[in-house]
């Protein structure tokens, strides 16, 4: 069961502000999703290894060969927060 505190914690982790009313709303929605997935608990999965990829693919690599990087102007083109070739962010922590 997801509690109101869980929803607040998840909101904090995602840096999303959630109002009192939304907290209750999300709690109910998340619990109904979990309940739905809970049906899977009826299956016996003791000896079944978890599936993380539907394709049985292993070992996808690239060679250690240099490719061209983006020009600095392109990298910074979509931000107004820049200074001396760097991204600028507010003070943290």
């Amino acid at each position: 069961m997801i509690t109101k505190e869980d929803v607040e914690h998840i909101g904090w982790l995602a840096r999303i502000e959630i109002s009192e009313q939304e907290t209750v709303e999300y709690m109910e929605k998340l619990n109904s999703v979990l309940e739905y997935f809970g049906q899977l608990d009826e299956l016996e999965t003791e000896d079944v290894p978890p599936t993380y990829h539907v394709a049985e693919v292993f070992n996808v690599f690239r060679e250690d060969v240099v490719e061209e990087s983006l020009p600095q102007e392109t990298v910074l083109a979509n931000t107004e927060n820049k200074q001396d070739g760097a991204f600028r962010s507010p003070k943290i922590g």
Partner: protein
Amino acid sequence: MVYENPDGIRIGLEIHVQLNKLKTKMFCGCSSDYHNSAPNTHTCPVCLGLPGALPVLNRKAVEAAIKVGLALEGEIAEETQFHRKNYFYPDLPKGFQVTQYDYPIVSKGKVVIEGEDGEHVVGITRAHMEEDPGKLVHIGSIEKSKGVLIDYNRSGMPLIETVTEPDMRSPKEARRFLDKFRNILEYLDVFDGNLEGAMRVDANVSVYWGTRVEIKNISSHKGVERALLYEIMRQKNVIRRGGKITQETRHFDEGRGVTLSMRTKEEAEDYRYFREPDLMPMRVSDWVPGIRETLPELPDAKRSRFIEQYGITDMHARSLTSKIMLADFYEGVCAKGADPKTAATWTADVFLGELNYRDLAISSYDGETIGFIHAKDPQVENSFKVSDMVELVKLFSEGKVSDRAAVEVIRSILDGTEEKTPLQIIEEKGLFKAEDDLVTKAVSETIAENAAAVQDYLGGAEKSLNFLVGQVMKKTKGTADAKTARELIIKELKG
């Protein structure tokens, strides 16, 4: 002798090492050669974390990780994979770091160090691959920071994080471990420790077998030793005053040499690890035999061989093999016919000592010339030739120069701006050992000219003998052998 560890000190380390010998980053083809470049010039959609960009793993990074694992005598996983570690920080453009979680590529290794009571085994818990975040520069001081500037050139650089067991029992052992670990990585040719930010260390330490405290992000080996010394003293003081050690993370202020508590977050860390769906799992254990064959001779093996092959002391062998390039340089000198024992003394004791004194770090060796850079200012470069060492060892062995003059030659080459051979320097500075009759003459003159000192010496003042020897050295412009001069004076005065 067994070290009792009276204060119950346990130290464990987490070491982040950049695989900076690779040409490209971990998951994209951006060049890893960014250290002297303008910010954000070595980036692409993958390492900038742009939506839709897909990472592809660098094969060489996996090979390097396996090499490291084998050199640490660890186990290489049958199947290994990546996870996402989720947190928000501006140096992490995606909002998560790609790392390994419960399936690290390496586990259960060990490193043997020279401990407080001889050989000491430090267990390696695990070693895993991950990507480096970008670099933050504070605008103004950290305390009064108005904001940060972010450079993503470092973002996505391949890292190996190695976690040790808390097996080290003193800051000295921690430093020895780091020296040995770095040495092994350089032997493997996966790592250049001279590059800025190449190795970063977190240390955890407890006293009286108690609660451990973590010290984050220390950037040098000396820094680790100092941080631990301070932290152990602090913990002992807290306990002496009846206080309790709380489990916490502290950071080391290099300038002041103290550890400071980091502001505790209002919420516990919660990284929500989950498997990285954009990267496929790896089954690479069949690479192991092939990679094992390519492993170079490692420091311990080289040390044993040096002792056997060159007949040198364990101390010299240890010192010469403490850096792969120095070991190669020494072997180059021996291969060109220098007497191995004399060459070991001049290379390990004098040459290395003069380098350390000047804060010079060995940075290259091409089979003939060994190069160094200043540890604090990489712009300052210098070099020394195999042929120079061979010539110097020969001149010394043949008794043509005194040991003082030979040291002088090494210093001249290290401090000089022009390229000169030892012979040229000896000729220019008149450093050839004085002929014996010249020394005898200087001794007679000295005795005649310094009656007072002679009387003092005959009266029992040993100090006066040193003065007289000094006068002889002065007369011969330092070319006399001090020991010979001393003996001659004593013979002259006491018969």
